[in-house]
């Protein structure tokens, strides 16, 4: 296809041509950034979490009497185990993505105290006996806590437990002791110190870090006895088959409410906790999808409108070309090539603009650098959009009969 006549014709219609280029450029720039934002959110929403999310039900029990918890807690657990379909029960202080965060900073040398800025902040999970089973934790190295360790652990007046054992996640181990086995190593926040007895597969923190998802897995588990928990063990966990979880949740909430009339029991499935945590993020992702769709539609209609006008204006010219031997295919090709050239110019400008917008967003929001491959993907999408929108008007142009040329008026 000869492109010189196309360029010559575009030069004559400079303003409409510039407008199409501008429209494509803006659409390309917004599209690349919006898709990048969507993909970041989608990957956050699907962060892996090594617990049995499908079968897990949690009931929070708040407002209990701390003095009676030593006897109430085992009684509550026994009652929950009686619910049909429940395989394991346990208590914890919090759950991944529950937004109920208890953080503390530890160091790996014996002189570490809380005010050391080089300490690493981790989320603490205090768990009762059987919590590894109830959560469905995957043990990678070492062991989980034994009965004595559960029985001996308690809260005194300090915010850290009176025990000397801890289980850490894989990424916590990697952060504190890169390249080494964590087993037998010690976490310090003097006067407290804890030896690592086990490493489990990565479990999310109660709040994730969207800037650096590796940090979302830095958490540790401590054993805790019912009597010494001072009200910290507020999450009752029940694990059953996924198809039973809604019924188990209702039964468990009712049972705990009956047994503890002065307290407030609230049940939810683990999937419910996860959905709630990511609700804002997923609605933002859907909004971005909507904006992209509408924006592409508006751009497509703009191209259709301008090209149709163009075709209308050039009916006579097209008729002459047809009369001197151009086939319908030639005419169709002419408009498609013209659109390809315009889109290419737009995409080129758009990629630069997309890069600029990305820089602006990095400066003003928590945003990473856009990987380069978003640019060619965005370009491809707009080429396709351009060809699709020009097809209708181009066909109309191709159907102009040669006889038009013989009429004086176009």
């Amino acid at each position, binding site marked *: 296809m000869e492109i010189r006549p196309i360029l010559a014709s575009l030069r004559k219609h400079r*303003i*409409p041509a510039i*407008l*199409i280029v*501008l*429209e494509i450029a*803006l*659409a390309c720039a*917004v599209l690349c950034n*919006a898709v990048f*934002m969507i993909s970041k959110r989608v990957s956050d929403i699907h962060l892996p979490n090594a617990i049995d999310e499908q079968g897990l039900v949690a009931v929070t029990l*708040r*407002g209990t009497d701390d003095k009676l918890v030593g006897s109430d807690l085992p009684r509550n657990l026994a009652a929950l185990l009686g619910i049909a379909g429940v395989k394991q029960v346990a208590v914890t202080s919090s759950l991944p993505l529950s937004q109920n965060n208890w953080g503390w900073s530890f160091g790996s040398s014996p002189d570490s*105290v*809380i*005010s*050391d*800025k*080089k300490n690493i902040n981790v989320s603490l999970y205090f768990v009762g006996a059987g919590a590894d089973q109830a959560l469905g934790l995957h043990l990678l190295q070492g062991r989980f806590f034994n009965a004595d360790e559960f029985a001996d652990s308690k809260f005194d*007046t*300090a*915010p850290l437990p009176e025990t000397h054992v801890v289980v850490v996640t894989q990424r916590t181990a990697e952060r504190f002791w890169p390249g080494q086995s964590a087993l037998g190593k010690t976490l310090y*926040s*003097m*006067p407290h110190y804890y030896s690592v007895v086990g490493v489990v597969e990565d479990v999310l923190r109660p709040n994730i870090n969207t800037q650096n998802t590796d940090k979302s897995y830095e958490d540790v588990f401590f054993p805790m006895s019912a009597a010494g928990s001072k009200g910290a063990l507020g999450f009752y966990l029940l694990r059953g088959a996924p198809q039973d979880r809604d019924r188990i949740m209702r039964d468990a909430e009712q049972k705990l*409410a009956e047994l503890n009339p*002065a*307290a*407030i029991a609230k049940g939810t499935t683990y999937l419910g906790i996860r959905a*709630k945590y990511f*609700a*804002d993020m997923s*609605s*933002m992702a859907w*909004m*971005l999808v909507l*904006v992209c769709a*509408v*924006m592409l539609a*508006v*751009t497509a*209609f*703009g191209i259709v*409108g*301008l090209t*149709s*006008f*163009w075709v*209308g*204006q050039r009916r006579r010219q097209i008729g002459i070309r047809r009369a001197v031997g151009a086939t319908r295919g030639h005419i169709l090709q002419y408009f498609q090539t013209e659109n390809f050239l315009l889109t290419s110019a737009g995409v080129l400008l758009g990629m630069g603009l997309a890069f600029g*917008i990305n820089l602006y*967003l990095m400066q*003003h*929001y*928590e945003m990473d650098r856009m990987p380069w491959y978003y640019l060619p993907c965005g370009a491809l999408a707009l080429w396709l959009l351009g060809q699709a929108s020009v097809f209708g008007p181009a066909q109309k142009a191709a159907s102009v009969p040669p006889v038009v040329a013989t009429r004086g*008026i*176009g």
Partner: protein
Amino acid sequence: MFAYYLDLALRSLKRNRVLTTLMVLALALGIGATITTLTVLRLLSGDPLPQKSAQLFYPQIDPNSKDGYLEGQTKPDLTMAYPDAMALMHAKRGTRQAAMAMTQAKIMPDKAHARPFFSDAVMTTADFFAMFDAPFQYGSGWSEADDESGAELVVIAGFLNDKLFGGTNSVGKTIRVGDHDLRIVGVLKPWSPQPRFYTQGMGSRSYGDGDAVFLPLRTARAMEMGPQDTECYAAVEDFRHLETAPCEWLGVWVELNNEGAVAGYKQFLDGYVKQQIAIGRFVRPDTSLLDLMSLMREQQVVPDDVRLQADLAFGFLLICVVNTVGLLLAKCLRRSQEIGVRRALGATRKEIFSQFMVEAGMVGLAGGVLGLAFAELGLLGIRHQPAQYASLAHLDLSMFAFTFVVALVASLIAGLLPAWRASVLAPAPQLKAA
């Protein structure tokens, strides 16, 4: 003449319905998106206490160790430890001052079969209500003497009064919070400043319903009610007794009525920190005394996503305007012959220009009306979102008016280029072609 242009514009718009619909629709979508996001943005970044915010200041100090300190760069923490908060309170350097922390209160309804429930509660000091202009429906706040003695009394919100006492005057009655009976001394009218400026750094949400229960700090602590967020800066021996622990959990607000008072308070604050450094409690000299709106800006209370949405909507509107320019241009160039005839019959360039601007304005108005419908739809969507601020998303009168300003400005900008092109067409060739 204007009426004639209107008539011409209407005829022209009717002649090409598809193109007109496309233009109006694109413009309306852009305007709808912009107005929706701007409404939310304005709502969230608004002034929670317009009559008072310029006089409310938030002192901050930094008790952390030297470790990790960069002079002039490290910002002081948001909350402070009990001894410091009390020192500022007792110095009484402001017209009013109050210390506060957020907590959860377990409320036991007096009725049979009614389940207990948790409500958001503020533990604070006497000046809270007068300083923040919290309006009372019944009764009043408490006194400084009540603060000192830890009197067992409480101020409740109107919605809690409706729930527990059917909206009647409950002053003098008691309400069971935790396992204590507290005497009600005041009932607030509906009061929920947006953003909830006084909860910053206290582990509570920044938007949404107001708090249900307000009680004296000392009373709440005696009932073992704890703050929702605690930051410790040194090893803690006794976490239960937060009053002596090296932990920050209280926010202090002061009311300062003129510039002199602000400067004086800053001097006092610096002096206090110097004194603490001298006795070895502190090492970092930095202090901060921001007014309410500056604190909101510094804390970036408006969620990132909301600002991002507004930016995105503007980008989208820009695309829609460029699109409208293109379509208007196509429309007006198609009418070159008509323009030629009008010019030949004596219409000036200015008149042609005006005619096309009127047409663009009409597209804008139609886009504005439809855009308003889209904005209402968008806000309806936002009200069904899980966000804290969802229930606040309503179009107010000023945004309603602003919609038409945006629509007209956008369409007139879009019309400039086509109208100019139309007005500079030379009449002769067009007539010849006709």
